[in-house]
């Protein structure tokens, strides 16, 4: 798109700065929530919710409603229902997610192809990080502030609930309420993330940084800090690689994350072999 020389031109700054700010905000949220989701074996919930979000966005754009006003509540509802289902054991984790995500996806595809929309819809599929306006960026920042504040205030309880639900219940921690809070934060993060990274790629932003950090850190705090740093670092690196080489940003960020994961695995393997 630009090459290195054009990177700092005023024209380029116009789309690079919002993309960087929004992307870093989402990378922080995704990594924070990813730690507890991955450790509780809910890694695929991000994928499922983003597909639900896709369906909702398609319906919203066909009906010419504000996309976020439809997507956020729908994804929130889906998150609560999925958690509720897997807790009650009626539909175990993965099955519920598969059912939800394919259903929502199909509805989205049917509605949008009937209405002849393909442009908007492909934005949601692959993200449109280079086309963020001021409002989008502010939304991303607000989301990041809410998620980070909630995570910091509830950090000890999130640890306890993630590590051992039965013990937490026994000591009187309202586990269900915390699950709800985590589901709600995840839902908001997913919707923001899919506008940037796309439906298909956002779940890797949730999962991969945690997996990388788990390779290197022994404690929970280490993993949280590691996941956030790796997530932000990989986003920035992947994003600039994409801009300089004129590649798709979302996909580049994911590939960078996976490369770092492989590197972390290698380091932990060498450490283990010593």
């Amino acid at each position: 798109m630009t090459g290195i020389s054009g990177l700092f031109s005023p024209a380029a700054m116009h789309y690079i700065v919002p993309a960087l700010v929004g992307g870093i905000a989402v990378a922080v949220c995704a990594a924070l929530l990813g730690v507890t989701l991955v450790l509780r074996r809910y890694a695929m919930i991000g994928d499922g919710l983003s597909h639900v979000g896709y369906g909702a966005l398609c319906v919203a754009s066909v009906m010419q409603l504000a996309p976020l006003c439809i997507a956020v509540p729908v994804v929130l509802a889906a998150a609560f229902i999925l958690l509720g289902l897997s807790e009650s054991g009626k539909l175990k984790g993965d099955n519920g997610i598969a059912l939800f995500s394919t259903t929502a996806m199909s509805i989205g595809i049917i509605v949008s192809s009937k209405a002849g929309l393909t442009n908007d819809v492909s934005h949601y599929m692959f993200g449109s990080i280079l086309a963020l306006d001021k409002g989008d960026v502010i939304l991303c920042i607000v989301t990041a502030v809410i998620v980070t504040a909630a995570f910091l205030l509830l950090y000890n309880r999130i640890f306890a609930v993630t590590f051992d639900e039965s013990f937490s219940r026994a000591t009187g921690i309202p586990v269900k309420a915390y699950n709800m809070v985590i589901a709600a934060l995840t839902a908001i993060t997913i919707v923001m993330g899919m506008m940037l990274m796309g439906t298909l790629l956002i779940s890797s932003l949730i999962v991969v940084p945690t997996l990388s950090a788990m390779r290197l850190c022994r404690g929970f705090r280490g993993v949280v800090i590691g996941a956030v740093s790796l997530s932000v670092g990989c986003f920035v690196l992947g994003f600039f690689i994409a801009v300089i080489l004129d590649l798709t940003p979302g996909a580049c960020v994911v590939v960078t994350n996976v490369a770092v994961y492989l590197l972390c695995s290698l380091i932990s393997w060498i450490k283990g072999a010593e």
Partner: protein
Amino acid sequence: MTPLLACQDITVQFGTNTVLDKLSFTVEPGDYLSVIGKNGSGKSTLIRALLKLCPLDRGSIVTADSFTRRDIGYLPQQSGIQKDFPATVWEVVLSGCLGHHKFLPFYTKADHMEAERNMHRLGICQLRKRSYRTLSGGQQQRVLLARALCATKKLLLLDEPVTGLDPAATSELYDIIRELNEQDGIAIIMVSHDMDGGLKDARHVLYLDEKTQYFADADTFRHSAIARQLEQEHHTHAHLRKIHYSREDAS
């Protein structure tokens, strides 16, 4: 002495299936109660009832004035999730203090000291920076015991504490539990299907199976018809196992 905990005719039903039927027993301060029963005898339901995690259909659980059921230090069965969980020993032990605060987001200085004391008590100070997932089964149980002690000083509820431990770690853990009971005066409720170990140090025994329930002090229980029958079954099993192994060796 007023009992710490008195269960009176507690009954729990799931649909038409009565899991606990008019069960009564008491736990005195400093008591050591061993709950013995096979799988499906209602042991886990009893635990859930004691922890206030499942409603009683009839009966009541009365506690001493200074004691609520949140004062129970719980040692749950090891779940699969914890096997690869990145958490340091310190983080796990400290999390036992969470029940002390309803809304405070962070731990206090007193919590840190409490965690320190309990790690010292269980001899795991040198493990504090180690990752929980790299510990042996016996070490992991000590860490979880230290966490439970952070939650309470009055009553520990142990759910199958020796499952998956080798014989040496098993007897070591029983010793630790006995010490906590005798030296620190902490009441113990231990749920187990390990007859021998479960009975060794107990002062009272509650035996559960689908039809019978029997609560007695440990000596009375050892001389009861149920104990004799269980011992016989135990020997028969051991005998059968021996035959089985010798056959395998031969072939």
